[in-house]
């Protein structure tokens, strides 16, 4: 859409709007995950409540973007690149909405954890959040700049998250075995770790769609290393 312009400037404007709205939601979800994690790490219940409240906006925009895309499909009957763009937009929109939900979920868990004493200083969880946030950021950057190489990198980062998730689980297991009082908190932390793992999956999903949008080839359900090598 960047290089070639349509004769109908309204069509151009509509495509542009979809892209802008997606980036906007992207910015919101990025922020939501960041704030959700900060609420957890800084034990900031107020911030957690804000994240949960803000999710309503992400949900509303999700419906709006979907409607815009469907209207474009119906009225403009896009072909080739534009069709791929709209298909990508619909899927990325879904991923972002889910990430937003997960940010709210993390915030909910943070509120519960904040009511109990700190189990232990978080070490791996912040690292995991950092990687997951990096993946969201880079997948969105890849979308904006149509950067296939960056999208491939995001796909590769998923392995780091999986490792951290396992590591956290093992550590929590030892806590739970040593002291049954920690079971409740450990389970919640484990759920947060799982949520972050799923956030990274959605970031990977966005990266997949970026690759599809630019190259027209689907890389979903294929290992990241296969096309990196």
């Amino acid at each position, binding site marked *: 859409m960047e290089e070639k312009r349509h004769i109908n400037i309204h069509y151009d404007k509509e495509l542009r709007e979809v892209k802008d709205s997606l980036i906007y939601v992207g*910015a919101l979800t990025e922020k939501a995950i960041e704030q959700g994690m900060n609420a957890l790490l800084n034990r900031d219940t107020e911030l957690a409540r804000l994240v949960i409240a803000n999710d309503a906006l992400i949900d509303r925009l999700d419906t709006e973007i979907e409607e815009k895309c469907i209207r474009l499909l119906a009225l403009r009957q896009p072909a080739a690149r534009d069709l791929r763009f709209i298909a990508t937009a619909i899927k990325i929109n879904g991923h972002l909405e889910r990430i937003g939900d997960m940010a709210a979920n993390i915030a909910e868990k943070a509120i519960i954890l904040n009511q109990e004493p700190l189990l232990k*200083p978080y070490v791996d969880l*912040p690292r995991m959040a950092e990687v997951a946030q990096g993946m969201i950021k880079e997948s969105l950057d890849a979308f904006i700049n149509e950067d296939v190489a960056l999208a491939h990198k995001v796909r590769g980062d998923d392995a780091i998250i999986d490792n951290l998730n396992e590591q956290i689980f093992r550590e929590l297991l030892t806590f739970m075995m040593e002291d049954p009082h920690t079971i409740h908190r450990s389970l919640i932390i484990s759920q947060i770790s799982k949520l972050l793992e799923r956030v990274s999956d959605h970031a990977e999903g966005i990266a997949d769609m970026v690759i599809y949008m630019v190259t027209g080839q689907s890389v979903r359900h294929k290992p990241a290393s296969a096309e990196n090598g």
Partner: protein
Amino acid sequence: MKFRLLHKFFFAFLTVGIVVVAVAGFLIEGELKTDLTMRIGEETAAEARIIALMPTGEIARQAGELAERARARLTLIDIAGRVIADSEAGSRELDNHLDRPEIQEALRAGIGKAVRYSLSLKKDMIYVAVPLQEGSRTTGYIRLSRPLTEIALATYGMGKTVFAIILAIVGVSLTIALLFSLKMLSPIRRLAAFAGQVRTGSISGTLRIDSRDEIGQLSDSINEMVSALQEKIQTADAERRKLESVFSSMREGVIVLDAENRIESVNQGIEEMTGRRHRDVIGKTLLEAFRNSKLHDALERFRATEETVSEEIGLGDHRPVMMDVTISAIHGKTEAERKTMLVFHDVTRLKKLERIRTDFVANVTHEIRTPLTAIIGFVETLQQGAIDDRGKALEFLRTIHENAQRLNRLIDDLLILTGIELGETNFHPERLTIEDALEQAMAVVAERISEKKLKLLKEIRQDLPPIRADRDSLIQILLNLLDNAVKFTPEGGTITFTASPGAEQDLIVRIADSGVGIPKGEIPRLGERFYRADKTRSRELGGTGLGLSIVKHLMKAHRGRMVIESALGRGTTVSLHFPLAQETT
């Protein structure tokens, strides 16, 4: 260019020449033909009249000889049109001649002339007929005919002449066109070359064309135009350079959006504030470049109201910056020139100072009130009768004393801090070795180290140069840091003390513990007064929340600095950078 002009001249001359000659030739040929035909006709008519005077029989008999003398063909025709005799063909072969136009004319007017193509001789012929008369009665006709070859010859000759003239005209017009175009072309080409130079911007001097005609005038106007233009360009250039240097040197960040709301330019300030490079943001929308929903909202609000919008926005990935953004319009003459300007003020420091100030007030009241509440509470309990229970009373008094001392410590610390900050503390700098100071500080915490079964490792190089510092301050610094290390390291942990020369004429002292560590986000705030990374725990351990703040300010007073590194769960390392003592002092 050259050839086109040449062609134009050439064809113009050629056309005019050829048309004139052709028309003249055509007219003259026509005239010539009529004239000659008439003369030949009259000659022949005269001869025919002479022959007609002879008696008919005689004519018929001498037809051949008469024809030869008259250099013509002679035909004798009777009144009914039958050919009686013919000088060149047998009379029998010829058909009735009464319908011939010349005969008809002779019958009517006494003489008939006609020019036509003779089928029998295959030539243009002139026919002249006169009636034969006996008295007043017409008995027949005599007709003389001659070929018009003379005329054809005459017109052919003239055609050759005309053709030669046309060739000459072609030659002459080519020459004239060439000369003319060369004369005209040379200045025009120079004009064109000069205009080209002006267009590309490499103007050298003025255009010199010594001509008084229109081209000369044109070159004069061009020269005037160019010099006026140059002046304008220079002014605009200077103006642009001035604006550019203002734009790039101002500390505020500036973004200019074009009519389509894409980033048209950013200045150095933006690059420094946001860490985004020029080429990464140009041509993108604000959302694409900064992906900040608040910034986008602010822009949308500006677009809706068309009024200047001012908003505080957090930006930046690595280093969070608080921006005060002002969005305003740059009005242009056309829709395409309408631009939007965003000016960013970095208010991070301002915000931080504001927060520190409010935090300080909140903290200091809190820190003072906690022991005060305890003191008042216990005093009231004593007043209400507890004083009579000697055991309880002593315990209460001890608690009151502890809280009073805590208040005292707090106020002492605050005074130290204020003293350093206001520059009222008197330092007595002397040459000191780290080892001496460490020993004195250690004496204070040694007991608690052994209580917690902590391991203290000392790595102090023997050849370390001395530093110049105030003895009491140095001990205070080391004491505060050791105190923190002891407090936050669990039992059986390790504290490592190292001193080594640094890279830049300084001495680095490191106090590392294997304690709980500090979250990354908290580290920059550690030097703030009353700032505690772990709020509940620190207070339990009896800290005032001023220790690191005092260290920071004392280090500053000694022209050194403090750097804190930490990993959660692994421990914290505080590095002190002391400048070395100068040899002369």
